[in-house]
């Protein structure tokens, strides 16, 4: 039986901060009927 070894990605604090900053910039408003 063979199986693929899972790849685990560990990110440093700076990368996590960067990901969160990108997420925050994605909040859009004004997309409903008003």
């Amino acid at each position, binding site marked *: 039986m063979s199986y693929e070894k899972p790849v685990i990605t560990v990110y440093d604090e700076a990368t996590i901060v*960067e*990901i*969160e900053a*990108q*997420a925050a910039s*994605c909040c*859009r408003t004004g997309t*409903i*009927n*008003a």
Partner: protein
Amino acid sequence: MHIIDDYIFDPGRLIFYRKDLPNFVKHEIQNTISISDKYEKLIAGLDKLDAKNCSVQDKPIDLIGICLTYNCSLRCNYCSYSSSSGNIDDLSMEDVTSFVVQAIKKRVMYNIAAINKKVEPLRFFFTGGGEPTHNWNRFKEIVTAIKDKCQEYHIPYYFELTTNGMLNDNKRNFIKSNFDKVMISYDGISEIQNKNRPCANERKTSSSIVEKTIKAFIDSSLEVTIRSTVWYYDFKRMKEMCDNLASNFNHFSEWSIMPIIPSGRALDEDNIREGYDIKKYSFFDYYIGLVDYAKMKKYNLYISTPVFNNTVSEYCCGAIFADCFWLMPDRSIINCIESERFRVEVGKIENSKVNLFSQYEDPYIEIVKSGFIKCRDCLAYRFCKGGCPLKSIRDQCFGTGYKQYECSMVQQYWTYIFQKILNGEECFGWRTEKITNERLVPYQILKLVKKEENKNED
């Protein structure tokens, strides 16, 4: 890879190259031009989130949304919140200031500890629900109290407001002195405004008061966006609206056009229930026609629409990361103001104390993840990332087919832009630039670039 006329679009690198390039050049591209899509990193960001077990992180926020009321003096026939009168507003000045002070203190503590200090202003966004200024005295009192708190803690601030414009001179003056940016709803022509946005008191009309408000605001230092929400049967009248706005209002920042989505009172309309037909009512076609028309007429108008996100985007939704909060009239704290009846509560104000939940469920996370992975082969992926999860939820509930309608138009939009820029033109701020890599110079390899948006330039 996607074929656009004689070119191949490489979405990972955001470049275009000719279809008939020799293979060694294609290899050279892969070896020398780095992939700008941080897919692995971004999917790791999504994987950190657990839909069944979310918690609000203890981090500083940049935006506080405040929805004071569901009440409104207008009865717009498409209002997503179906705003009316007589709703109970529980959010007090003490509730709002307790939340603001907590956010300010978090920012101050962060700035003491962090190397990259937050220097940008803390944004306060007053919007609906209903009309933020409906209970004027409370609105004024809360705006003033927030400013006082920011000044006390030496925090720079920025105030934004979405309003129906039903204001008198005193109110207009207060807004001019205290806000930085205003979005004012006006449906392009008096006749359509009065038809779509009638007053609760049926003997009155809204157009003349709103038009006066727009004029007062554009004569001030406010950044003014006029928002027109358009029924599909009025798409054909957008050029007429454009003529009216250009001739009656000078130098406002932006005209934002929103085709009506299936939500709130708009669902009362039989045609919306029957679903959308892109061939019959393609907002994309009318929008492109309108932009060309405004250009031909040399109008000094910056036209936009929330339907087409005109930037490269990392995620389609920031709400799932709980990075900004909206205080609601019932004192709940939610992560997206657009979510109306499908909202996710992430906290509550109780006895004027803020309680941000350490555990809540967010069904949008799975929808965002699914779109992020599933849509990867789409031409528009780098700009859309699967689209707003609310659209999927609404479609599941109402079966109107809007998500597919919008999805097709987004693909049409980017195909249109790519065709234009590959033809040497500039389109919605985008253009191509030749790759200057020495070994690739002899070949026609073009990167997608966007100029800094200058709203007054178009």
